[in-house]
Structures are given as structure tokens and as C-alpha cells.
């Protein structure tokens, strides 16, 4: 339906006074992609979105769409759609008035407006809500209207600024699927801003992890999830256990042996590590296997300190004999004080350069 863009290319720097909130943030987005800017609050992801929308000016840089430079255009001339965190519906207009707003500005015939608004309301599954005011709707309904209001103009690019963060957990999952469905069915190009890694992984074709205004890693959800390029991304993507080590040997297939603090760990890496270099071995709590075998390569004895029952399994903190603490998610029933063995499957252990050693990529 929508005539979407072929490509979006930008390079932006933004400073507020002496503070740099975006440092040479550059990216190329292809048509029909779903791209997510992911990062903690204050990383500059919303600022970047607002600059793309034209709501705030960039300090330096340019934005190109299909070979046309657009960063001098005011927001109303860009033909983008935007959905805001707090919905930003016009409180003095009905649902119909809100969705019809942009069409009326384009001076469309009344019959066409009516038809398109109705179509949109059906698309977001709120057909009987035309005459309500935003104040009479729930948060989820308001967000659907906000999405409909942006989509009805057939935007060539959709910008979504944490649209789900004001909703409760159940509604969030429901709306997530809804957004994905609309994106795919309508053939949109979308840029989505969030601090929630699950949202980013489940929605996107391409995830851009940001910190302090700098792009840390960009890739497919699988790459970001399995192959974080540095400690920050690893930490943000749920790696919880980090062990400082020294590289012992590196094999051509990417597998690495390393040791440190009385632990010998085998894992894999995508970095050019050399024997003798300092590194960090990382593993997710879910990937640690708990058993009773003797200690050996990639398996470590420890005592159970704390067990939290989570329904589907247990979150366990182990005090390893080496002195380190280990977070583990396991379906095994263990009791505090019990001695167990924690096994690190080598393909689940990644080795990263330490912080500050070429971290940003």
C-alpha cells in the first residue's frame, strides 16, 4: 500500500551546549526494513529519531532519502509518520478528528477521508471508536489510534519512539505483535526506538545498539544476540557472567583456550586475539549447565548460595571454588549449601577484548 523509501542514509552529530549526545552516528537503512535503535536511557536514540523526524536540528551531518538530501526540510514536509511514547493524541479532537487531521490538511475530499479513517480504524481493530475522545480510551487503545493516525497518511518512513513503554506487560506483547503485523502487511519501512532488548530482538530485521551517542554494534538480531562485539553489548544482551582471563591459544576455527583466576575456559571469539592477550570470557546464566560430575575443562565446582524459584526454573547464585560468583538459570532443583558442578558449553562461551581495548566498533 504505502509508497515506501528505497534507502535512508544519514550521518549525524548533535551537541547540546558542551555535551555531545550523538557522535558521528551513521547508518544506512534499506526500504521495508524494521530497524531498532536500542540502548539505555540517555544513549541518544530518541534524539536521533527526533532529528530524523525534523523536530530538532542536528548540529552537524546530513540525511538522505533515495538520493535526495532532506535534513533542511521541516517535519511537515518530510512525509514521515511518527508515534510517540505518550501517544500525543490531540485531547480536543475525537478519534475521528485525530486520524482525519493530516488528511484534512491535505484537503482530501470528505468522502475519501471518511473512508480512509474507517479503514484505518478497522486495521487497528477499533472500528466503533470514532466519536470518542482520547481521554475516554485506555492506554493501549490510545496507542492504536496514534499508530492509525500516522499510518493513514501512508508515510514513506515510520518512526516509533518507545511506543510500548507506557503499557503493562501483557498489552505490550500484544501490541508488539500488532506493530510487526502492520509493518509486514503494509510493506513499511520503520525505525523503532526502545531500551527493551526483547522488543528489539523480536521486532527487528536490524538492531543498532547505542551508548552515549555512539553506535556500538549494528546487525541482525541473531548477530547481536549471539555475537556481541564488546562488553557493553554483551552485558546489555544478557550475558551476566564475566571472567577476566589471559588467552592461551587461538585456533583457526575461532575457538580459544584461556585461563585466569584458577579457571581454564574454552570458548570462541570473532576478535583477533593473540596468545598472552588479556580478554574477558562471558556466558549467559541460561547457558550454564548444572550437574554433579567432577571438575575439569570448562566445568567448575561451587556451592549453592541463593536459590530463587522462578516458576519455569530457578535462578541460582553459585560461589565457585575459585572465589568467583556465578549466576545460573537451571531447571535442576538445588538447595542452598549443596555442592554442584557448573559446566560451560564451549560454543556458548564468548571471548571479548577487555573494556577500552577497541570496544566501540
Amino acid at each position, binding site marked *: 500500500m504505502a509508497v515506501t523509501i528505497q534507502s535512508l542514509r544519514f550521518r549525524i552529530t548533535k551537541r547540546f551546549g558542551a555535551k555531545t549526545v550523538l557522535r558521528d552516528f551513521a547508518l544506512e537503512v534499506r526500504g521495508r526494513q524494521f530497524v531498532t535503535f536500542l540502548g539505555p536511557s540517555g544513549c541518544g536514540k530518541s534524539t536521533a529519531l527526533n532529528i530524523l523526524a525534523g523536530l530538532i536540528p542536528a548540529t552537524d551531518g546530513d540525511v538522505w532519502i533515495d538520493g535526495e538530501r532532506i535534513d533542511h526540510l521541516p517535519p511537515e514536509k518530510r512525509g514521515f509518520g511518527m508515534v510517540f511514547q505518550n501517544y500525543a493524541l490531540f*485531547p480536543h479532537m475525537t478519534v475521528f478528528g485525530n486520524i482525519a487531521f493530516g488528511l484534512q490538511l491535505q484537503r482530501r475530499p470528505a468522502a475519501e477521508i471518511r473512508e480512509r479513517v474507517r479503514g484505518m480504524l478497522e486495521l487497528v481493530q477499533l472500528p466503533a471508536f470514532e466519536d470518542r*475522545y*482520547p*481521554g475516554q480510551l485506555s492506554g493501549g487503545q490510545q496507542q492504536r489510534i496514534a499508530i492509525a493516525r500516522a499510518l493513514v497518511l501512508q508515510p514513506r518512513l515510520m518512526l516509533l519512539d518507545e511506543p510500548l513503554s507506557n503499557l503493562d506487560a501483557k498489552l505490550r506483547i500484544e501490541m508488539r505483535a500488532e506493530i510487526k503485523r502492520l509493518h509486514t502487511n503494509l510493506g513499511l519501512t520503520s525505525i523503532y526506538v526502545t531500551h527493551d532488548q526483547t522488543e528489539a530482538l523480536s521486532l527487528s530485521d536490524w538492531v543498532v545498539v547505542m551508548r552515549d551517542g555512539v553506535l556500538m554494534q549494528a546487525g541482525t538480531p541473531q548477530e547481536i544476540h549471539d555475537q556481541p562485539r564488546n562488553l557493553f553489548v554483551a552485558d546489555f544482551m544478557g550475558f551476566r557472567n564475566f571472567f577476566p582471563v589471559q588467552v592461551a591459544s587461538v585456533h583457526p576455527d575461532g575457538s580459544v583456550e584461556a585461563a585466569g583466576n584458577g579457571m581454564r575456559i574454552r570458548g570462541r571469539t570473532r576478535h583477533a586475539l593473540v596468545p598472552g592477550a588479556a580478554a574477558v570470557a562471558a556466558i549467559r546464566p541460561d547457558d550454564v549447565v548444572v550437574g554433579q560430575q567432577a571438575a575439569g575443562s570448562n566445568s567448575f565446582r561451587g556451592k549453592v548460595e541463593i536459590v530463587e524459584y522462578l516458576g519455569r526454573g530457578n535462578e541460582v547464585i553459585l560461589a565457585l571454588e575459585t572465589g568467583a560468583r556465578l549466576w545460573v538459570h537451571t531447571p535442576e532443583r538445588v538447595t542452598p549449601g549443596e555442592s554442584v558442578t557448573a559446566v560451560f558449553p564451549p560454543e556458548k562461551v564468548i571471548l571479548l577484548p577487555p573494556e577500552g581495548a577497541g570496544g566501540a566498533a
Partner: protein
Amino acid sequence: MRGRLWGLALYLFVLGFILNLLGIVSHVMVSAFAKRWFGTPLPTAFTTEWFTYAWSNFDLGRILTVTLSVAGAVVVLALILGFPAAYILARRNFRGKPLLLLLYFLPLLIPQMTYGIPLATTLYRYAIGGTVAGVILANLVPMVPLAVFILMPFFEQISMNLEWGAAMMGANRFQVFRRILLPLTVPGLLTAGVLILVNTVSNFELTFLVSGAGSQTLVVALFYNVFAGGVRPVYSVDAMAVMYMTTVMLLLLLALRFVRPTQMVFRLDQPQR
């Protein structure tokens, strides 16, 4: 580009207004120190004698005493009357509450000249008109509601749970008031206090209508002297104006330690949708 020009125009207007204001205020100041000033950019000679002249000829010592005691009394009484009412209006729901709020709002909305004349008439009928007590009573009419409206949001900010928690720990109503509410509303009391102070000192109409010869405040005395322009040398009137201005400025400096400038005017809340 057009946006920039537009913003520039706005700032130029503000600048113009401020220059204008500074001109008005400094004209009074320069004139108060002038020996003679007649059609020149600045006076030819300066003197401070108009201040001593004004002080003795306008009986300023007594007027200043009256002004400050009126203001002090109004602050204390308005807070005592307004504090409990603000608490109830912030905390409780009852039928007729909107009406009650409207009633408290009216003395602030209706200009003082409109209700000042019947109020003055009534006060004179009971022989309170013309006395310092009468001036205090009249000034309390807008100031009690002002205290209520300033204090209300401060009570609304204090979580009910604090009071309930204290009660669960065995505090009775008086102890809750003394140990929880009072300390937590100190900022509100300060805000209300300084705003009432500044407003009472510069409040003209009600004081003008109710005060007599012995109960004039500074601003009323100033009015009579400006009104009788030519009876006294204009420099001495300006000297008195400078003394009034100094009083207000000192109070304003004090006030701005506790409140933001925007709190000095009416607060309009966004309608809750």
C-alpha cells in the same frame, strides 16, 4: 530563517520592555538624589538632603512602623486561618466543595475597588475603619484565600501514607500535625508567608479605602504625595518613593530566596483531561 527573525523580534520586545522599566525606575532614583533637575539628561548637582527632608516631613518613621506591623500581622493571621482550611480542602471530599472554593476565589478575582467600598463602609460603621486594626482586617480578606490557594498544593504533595503510617505507629491527630504535617509544609508556609508579605506592603486599594490619618501604609502615603504633586518638592516625593522601593525590593529579595518568580503571579493549572 523566518523563525530566527521572529525569535529576535520577541527578544527585542522584552528588551524594550525591560529598558522602559529600568528608565521608569531609575528616573525616580536619580530624581531623589537631585538638587535641581530641569530638562537635562542628568541633574546638575546631587544631594541626599531630600531623604532627611522626606523622613521628617512625611513622618516616615511612623508610616514604616505601621506598614511593617500591618504586613507582619496579616502574614501571621492569614497563615493561621488559611492553614487548616487548606489542609481540609486538599484532603477531603464533601458536597459543596467546588462552591466553597469559588467563595474563597472571589476576593482574589473581584477588584478591590468593587468590594472595598462596601467593606470600608461596614468597617466605619463599627468604628474599626481608619484604625490599624481595620487596615489589617481589610487586607486579610484577599490574603486568607491567597494563603489557602498557595498551601493547598503543598498538602496535596504529601502522601496520605505518611499520615497513615504515623497513625499506625501510634501518633494521635495532634502528634501527626506537629511531627509530620507541620515540618513537611514549612516550604509552603514560607512561600505563602513571603508572598503575602510582599503583596500586603504593595497593596494599595483596600488600605487606601480603610486607612485613616494614623494608619496609612507607605504606599498610601506615597499616593497622597504624588496626588498632591507640587505641594512638596518632587525630589522629596521621589526620595520617599525610593524608600518605598527599597522596602519592597528587600522583601522581594527575601521572597525570591524561597519562591520562583513565576510563583509571584496567579498559577493556572492545566485542565485534567
